[in-house]
């Protein structure tokens, strides 16, 4: 599952193929949508959650609030079921889904007029760490490269060669994870999995809002 972008997406993979999947784009309802999506996907496959032998979760980068929904859900599943959680960079799922086998980049919406992005040698090989920047500041470095993801569509001036997919799919993330698990490539490092910890790439806004905690009913 992945909730790091406006997409709330869940898929079930049996090691050979995607059995069922769900994708909804709604940036403000990750919390409400994720568990019902898990339930739908499992129901479609005729399975219960305890049949799952591992959980794969997109760790971002992504806007914070939504990102945490997927990560805490994955951690809770892992704890309740006693199965491992594997983290994958959210951008890797988009790269894998693109199927592009030449150098390209992935860019997602980071809000505040910025994008989260990384460069790839091919659909399975990320060659830079994920970063957050203003499109104009990286346009030159990525000139001539296809750019996958919603970030490209938002900033056509900086990224003229936008490619599909626009949104993250857990099906691609699960398929990529299944490939790596099958290859025994489960360790840390660029080829394997990441710890299931959030990739924020920004420091928190350390401002105490005025009347920060007045939640009493009027």
């Amino acid at each position, binding site marked *: 599952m992945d909730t790091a972008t406006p997409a709330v997406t869940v898929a079930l993979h049996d090691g050979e193929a995607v059995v069922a999947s769900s994708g909804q784009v709604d940036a*403000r309802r990750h919390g409400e949508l994720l*568990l019902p999506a898990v339930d739908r996907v499992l129901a479609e496959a005729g399975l219960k959650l305890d049949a799952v032998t591992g959980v794969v979760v997109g760790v971002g980068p992504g806007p914070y*609030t939504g990102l945490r929904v997927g990560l*805490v859900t994955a951690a*809770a599943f892992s704890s309740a079921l006693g199965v491992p959680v594997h983290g994958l960079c959210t951008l890797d799922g988009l790269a894998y889904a693109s199927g592009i086998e030449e150098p390209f980049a992935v860019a997602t919406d980071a809000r505040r007029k910025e994008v989260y992005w990384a460069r790839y040698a091919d659909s399975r090989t990320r060659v830079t760490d994920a970063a957050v920047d203003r499109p104009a500041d990286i346009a030159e470095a990525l000139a001539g490269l296809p750019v996958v993801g919603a970030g490209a569509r938002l900033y056509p001036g900086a990224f003229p060669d936008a490619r599909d997919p626009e949104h993250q799919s857990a099906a691609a993330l699960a398929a990529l994870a299944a490939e790596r698990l099958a290859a025994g490539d489960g360790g840390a490092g660029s080829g394997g999995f990441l710890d299931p910890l959030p990739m924020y790439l920004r420091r928190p806004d350390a*401002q*105490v809002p005025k009347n920060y905690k007045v*939640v*009493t*009913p009027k």
Partner: protein
Amino acid sequence: MAADEPLVLGIETSCDETGVGIVHGTTLLADAVASSVDTHARYGGVVPEIASRAHLEAMVPTIERALKTAGVSAKDLDGIAVTAGPGLAGALLVGVSAAKAYAYALGKPLYGVNHLASHICVDQLEHGKLPEPTMALLVSGGHSSLLLSADITSDVRPMGATIDDAAGEAFDKIARVLDLGFPGGPVIDRLAREGDPRAIAFPRGLSGAKDPAYDFSFSGLKTAVARWIEAKKAAGEEVPVRDVAASFQEAVVDVLTRKAVRACKDEGVDHLMIGGGVAANSRLRALAQERCERAGIRLRVPRPGLCTDNGAMVAALGAEMVARNRAASDLELSADSSLPVTDPHVPGAHAHGHSHDHSHDHVHEVSKENLYS
């Protein structure tokens, strides 16, 4: 403890404490808390994004610690309760998501409950079944409310609330003016014990004959204290910190206890409970005890550890929901930063044949920025 009492795990993440409690009916089995208060201290208040990040880090380890302490298996739980609101949206969302995932993975009913009702219900863990009706005074950095609980699972009525600052906020702000650090409650309580509460006559907010009987205001008091200190400094005199602390504290607890006792008398209620972080204040406890005794009211105040935000209070209310057969929440349960106090829990949309829609904004003023910052 009776064998048929529900075993419930409760999760609380409405502010800066990641709390997980486990109760068996009205018996407390575990109360695990991870706090990010030290991180917030240097900002002089709770920073929502810092709190949310800390909740994510602490959530599952705190749940596992609580289960271990209680010596129970998650499989034996009768339900999982979680604070659905009110509170900081991003912080609530971490707890609600974790609760849903555990409930779903374990096949247990989920109960999204109200933070304020939980503050009241926690006293059951200390003093046994809560009499109904009970008047409740909730005072903390986030709340200053007078509530009448006729049925803690279904009927909680707001009597009054602060119209500006919460009581705990006033303590924090005065501590800042006096350079005493954050949070302000404990240090002011300590210094006040060595000061004279009658040294300075600070104003009692909303205490006039025509003022609302049960509402509170602490903003004017805060300004009066700050001005008094500034005047002392301007005159080149030393600020009598202990007397200021004692006189300020007296002004706060005088109004709180006076209004709470009056509400009890007006409504014919003979039990008053005090909860929230400020309930740890020694002068508030003493004055409430004195005035309740005089009015023939039984006072119930849980120990300080149960007054501040914690998971045990959520578990206590969850257990009551199970015991009274209240409808469970569904998997769509939202974190509702402004959940009204009149909703002690959030039943599933199909539970009562009508959808659970309130007319208020689901996105709280404070959390709007935080939601996708």
